[in-house]
Each structure stands twice: as structure tokens, then as C-alpha cells.
């Protein structure tokens, strides 16, 4: 059994690495500091976030996406064809993002996320570092498509771009590439088209891959999830508690990501409850095929609670492993 995280991590931590990202971004937006100064703050914060996840004992970490505005903008601003529009709500959260607009056919201009990945990799001491990209349907749904005006066409075109990005990340040393697909639960895509788009992304990729579904249950596609061309399926059993029942009824031939710690509420889980959960889930998935994680990115939590939850999660896994 391994522990992992989903992606983003609090950019500010009043109780440890401080709030310097806020001030740096403010000054950068006003033109008072240059790109290098801002990058310095991002690097320092990323280093703290990586060190913290490692110290907490997480097996597969991310760089915390400290430079990311949201799940899609880091790609949209470096792929040709997009402009950035006004604020839109990020799923059913009280969190907003600037919606990219696809104005013309998207074109990959070269790696968008690889620089950040390389920088982060140099900071990691012990853990594995995974790369995260938005899924093809999520990318399609989070943007405004003024070019194709056909979601399936748009999804396939973005899948081609995501493939190039994933390949570049794997070549830069990403042993794990995670594909985030919250929109599959929010607004289900046509199953066959989605499976095709997923295959496009992962084809020939020299990395382990996973698809992550959070915020909503991928109910409509639940039976097809294991047909997706990825090594692991990650599910959020917190947002929809009924999902656990369905997981327990499935014959799992893929690895399972178990999003079981609530990253959208501060209430701490108990070790006893988590251990009971692991008992149940290991009846349908072998322990070595189980990846325990929060249900979604940790940025919805204040930092003190985020780190407390990670520590508790690792504790619960270790205690369960000791039996």
C-alpha cells in the first residue's frame, strides 16, 4: 500500500513557510518585481512543500502546483490557440478560475510543464515525484470552445496535445503521470470517445499512468473505467460516500487510487476509521495495488489542516501495515 496526493497544495502557510507567494505575486502583477524574483519565491515555496510531503512520509508526491493558477491555465497559456477570459466557478467549490477560451485550432508549441517538473525533481530526496495533467474531457469542459464547437472533436484535439506533453514529462523523468478527470463525473462524456482520447494520451508512454476522478462520482462511466488505457483508477469516496459500495462490488484488475481523506473539510478523520476502510478495500484490491490519498488537491484546506491530514493518513497506513 502506497500513499500519494492528488496535486495542488496550499501556496501559503502561516504556520510554516509563510505567505510570501501572495506579496510576490502582487508586486509582480504591478510590475514591481521581475519574473526571476517571482520565480525565486515559487522555487523556495516548492522546496518547502516537497520537503514537507517527504517529511510526512508520502510515497508519491507532487510539486504542489505552486506556480499553477488552476488545473488548465498552465497548459492553456503555453499552447497556441487560447486566450484567457473572466472568472468562472471551479466545479461546486467556492473557488474561481479564469476560463481559457479556445479561439483557433490548438497547437503544441513545446513542453509547457517540463521545466517545473525538472526543477521539482532536483529538490526531491526520497519520494517519487509524479506529474499531473488535466484529462481530455476536463480540459474540454473547463475551457470555452469557440473553435470546434463540438466537445468530442475538441476533446480529441486536446488529447493529442496532452499526449505530447505527457511524453515530454515522461522523458524528463516522470515515472508516474496522473490524468485528472473531475469533469467525467460532473458532465459525463460519450464513453467511446473518452476512452479513445485516453488511449491517445497514454499510447507508448514510458510511465505508469492513472486517471483521477474527484468532486463527483463518475457514475455514468463507472463500468467502463477499467477499460481506460491507464494503469490505475483513482476515485473520491468522500464527496460521494455511496461510491465505496460500488468499488467493493467490482473485480479490480487495475490499481486503485483511494481518495479517502477529505481535502475539502477541516474535520480530521480517525485512524481507526481509515484502518477499517483499508480492511474492506483490500478484500477487492491487493494492498500492493492500492494508493491511499486525499480525495482531491489539498489547496482547499488551510495549511495547518492539510499537513495534519497528510500525517494522519500516513500514520493510518503504517499502523494498518503493521497489523
Amino acid at each position, binding site marked *: 500500500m502506497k500513499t500519494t496526493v492528488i496535486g495542488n497544495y496550499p501556496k501559503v502557510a502561516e504556520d510554516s513557510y509563510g505567505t510570501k507567494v501572495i506579496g510576490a505575486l502582487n508586486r509582480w502583477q504591478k510590475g514591481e518585481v521581475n519574473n526571476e524574483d517571482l520565480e525565486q519565491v515559487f522555487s523556495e515555496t516548492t522546496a518547502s512543500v516537497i520537503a514537507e510531503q517527504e517529511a510526512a512520509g508520502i510515497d508519491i508526491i507532487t510539486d504542489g502546483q505552486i506556480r499553477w493558477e488552476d488545473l488548465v491555465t498552465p497548459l492553456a497559456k503555453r499552447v497556441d490557440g487560447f486566450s484567457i477570459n*473572466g472568472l468562472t*466557478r471551479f466545479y*461546486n467549490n*467556492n473557488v474561481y478560475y479564469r476560463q481559457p477560451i479556445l479561439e483557433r485550432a490548438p497547437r503544441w508549441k513545446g513542453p509547457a510543464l517540463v521545466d517545473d517538473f525538472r526543477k521539482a525533481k532536483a529538490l526531491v530526496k526520497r519520494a517519487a515525484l509524479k506529474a499531473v495533467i488535466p484529462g481530455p474531457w476536463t480540459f474540454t469542459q473547463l475551457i470555452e470552445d469557440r473553435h470546434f464547437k463540438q466537445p468530442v472533436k475538441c476533446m480529441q484535439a486536446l488529447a493529442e496535445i496532452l499526449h505530447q506533453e505527457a511524453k515530454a514529462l515522461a522523458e524528463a523523468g516522470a515515472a508516474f503521470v496522473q490524468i485528472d478527470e473531475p469533469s467525467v463525473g460532473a458532465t459525463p462524456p460519450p464513453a467511446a470517445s473518452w476512452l479513445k482520447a485516453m488511449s491517445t494520451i497514454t499510447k507508448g508512454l514510458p510511465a505508469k499512468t492513472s486517471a483521477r476522478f474527484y468532486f463527483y462520482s463518475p457514475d455514468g462511466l463507472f463500468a467502463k473505467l477499467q477499460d481506460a488505457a491507464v494503469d490505475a483508477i483513482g476515485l473520491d469516496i468522500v464527496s460521494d460516500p455511496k461510491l465505496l459500495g460500488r468499488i467493493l462490488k467490482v473485480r479490480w484488475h487495475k490499481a486503485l487510487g483511494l481518495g479517502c481523506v477529505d481535502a475539502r473539510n*477541516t474535520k480530521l478523520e480517525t485512524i481507526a476509521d481509515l484502518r477499517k476502510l483499508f480492511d474492506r478495500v483490500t478484500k477487492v484490491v491487493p494492498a500492493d495495488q492500492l494508493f491511499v490519498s486525499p480525495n482531491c488537491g489539498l489547496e482547499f484546506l488551510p495549511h495547518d489542516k492539510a499537513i495534519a491530514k497528510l500525517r494522519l493518513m500516513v500514520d493510518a497506513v503504517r499502523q494498518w501495515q503493521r497489523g
Partner: protein
Amino acid sequence: MLLTTSVGSFPKPDYLIKARSRFRKKEIGQQELRRLEEQSTREWIARQEDLGIDILVDGEQYRGDMATYFAENLEGFAISSLVRSYGNRYYRKPVVIGPIRRKRPITIEWFKFAQGLTKKPVKGMLTGPYTIMDWSFNEHYPNRRAVALAIARVIHDEAKDLERAGATYIQIDEPALSTRTEEIDLAIEAMKICTQGLRAKTITHICYGDFAAIYPKMLKLAVDQIDLEFANRKFELLATFKKPRFTKEVGLGVVDVHSHRTESKEEVIGNIEQALKVFKPEQIYVDPDCGLKTRTVDEAVDKLRVIVEAAREVRSRLGTKHSVHSTSLSTDPERAKRVEGSALSTKARRLVNSR
């Protein structure tokens, strides 16, 4: 008909923004901050009177975040360290850590202060239980419904106190309601508790969202008026409300609060006339899309001025066909039946009669 009003918040003047920051750094005391909050509230009441707005608000000069303000004044809440809202914006989010109780009235003193400055009615302004719940972490109650209903009970007590203090309009905002349309039943259940037995006219403001998914069900919200953003999506919402008929009063947002540009009078007249194809004139209250607190003082005043001028012109165009008198007593028939017979205070009656 076509009475003019505002959604709630107004921008804070520079001296108050500075004072709030100095107060946080403990450079000035509560008393000094309060003095400046009162000064700024006086200014906003005077501005609204000068502009000729019909139903005033106190401008919420003493509030920060609309959910956190109530959480800070209720028992059972703690306030978290910083979480990100969007871009480079962070806020402190309420955390429910115990049973939610109201130690003492929260907004009454400010309501009395503002109402004491004008003969025109001032709206009592509350944040709704669904929104406070949705915008808080919950470490105490078993589920979201339990949190929302506990908050609904304290908001009801606060609304009753506002009514006793003379409020003839009580607005209970639910901007979060359009976030999770699958929870509309919970929002309806909670609002029913809030407005139970009130005789004042009740209003709720909901921010832009997927109204097609909750219409016409949203008409079951136990309020007389639903206030909505129309301008920022170019009045495309109107199509949703054509059928079935919109049975409540509507707060018609006719200017975009997110744009620096002041709309022209003709534009706003055009907006009202579009709405008149879907709503009856006596159904409509004219206001900005949302709270104006993100605009500058000048921008806010300019936008309000255009609203007043446009509403006046449309009123006079409609001419003698309609009476300009309206009542601020509840018109929601379902709710009127449940009114517990609590008489309005003398002051409230005087305000109603004076209009």
C-alpha cells in the same frame, strides 16, 4: 412600481480601508474604527438619499466577508487560517466547531443606526443559512443539512429582531445557492425556517448560476422577492423565466458590478424594457447586479445614478397606467398564512405608511 434599491454592500472609502488595516495591526482601537464606520455609513445614506433611491441599504461598511461576518458573531464557529479563493485572493474561512447559537443580536444596532439617519426604509441585510454553510468547514454537525438548519434558526431569530427594530424589508442572501443545484431542496427548507412568521417583505439575492436547473423550483423559496444578476449575462436569464410564469417579485440587476464602465441611461432603460416583456411593472425592483463593494465610490455612485434616472424615465413612460405606491408587507401568499400575527412596530408602520 420599479422601485430602486441596492443589493447590499458599497465600497469602503480609503480612510476606512486604512483604518481597518490599522485596526488589524492594533494601531487604533475599536472605538476609533467604529467612529469611521459610522461616518462612512452616514455618507452612504446621504448619497442614496441625494440620488433618490427608494429603498436604502446601510452599505455594510463594518463587514468584511459576508459569511465570515456572521460566523465571527455566532457561537460555534472558529475562523481558519488562510485559504485561496481565486487568483491571488485568500480569505479566512469559518469552521463550525460546536453547536451554532446566537449570543446576542448581530446586525440590529447597525440597522437602527442607519434607519435613524433616514425616513426612507433601510433593508435589514442577512446572509442565508445555505450560503454560510456552503462557505464554511464543518467539524461538528453530521452533515451539510444539519449545519444549514442550525444556521437557519439563528438567522430567523436575527430576522425577527430586525423586524422588531422596524425593518420592513429583510434580505437574506443566498449567493451560493446556484453552486450545487442538487441541494435546492435544502436551501428551500432552510429559507422557510428563516422567514417563518415574518411580516416584513423578504428578499433573497442569488448570484449567477445554472438557473435553468433550479427553475421553477426556486420559486418555492419562502421569500417575496428574488434578486438576480441580469446585466452581466446580457439578460439571457430572461428566457428561463418566461415559462412558467415568475410568480414572485424580481430584483432586477440592470448594471454590471464587475465592470468599471458606467452604463448609459438608454442602455439601462433598454434593460428594464426587455424585462417588462417577462415581468409586470409592479413585480420589478431595479438595482445593480450584486453588491457594489468592488467598485470605487465614484463608480458606485455613477451606476446608482443611472439606475435611478432610467427607472424614473420608464415609470413616466408607463405613465398613469400603474400606481407608484406599493407596500413593503409580505406578498408571498404561502408565507402570509403562516404569519404568527406579530404586529409591526410603530416605527415600521410609520415607515410603511409614510410611503
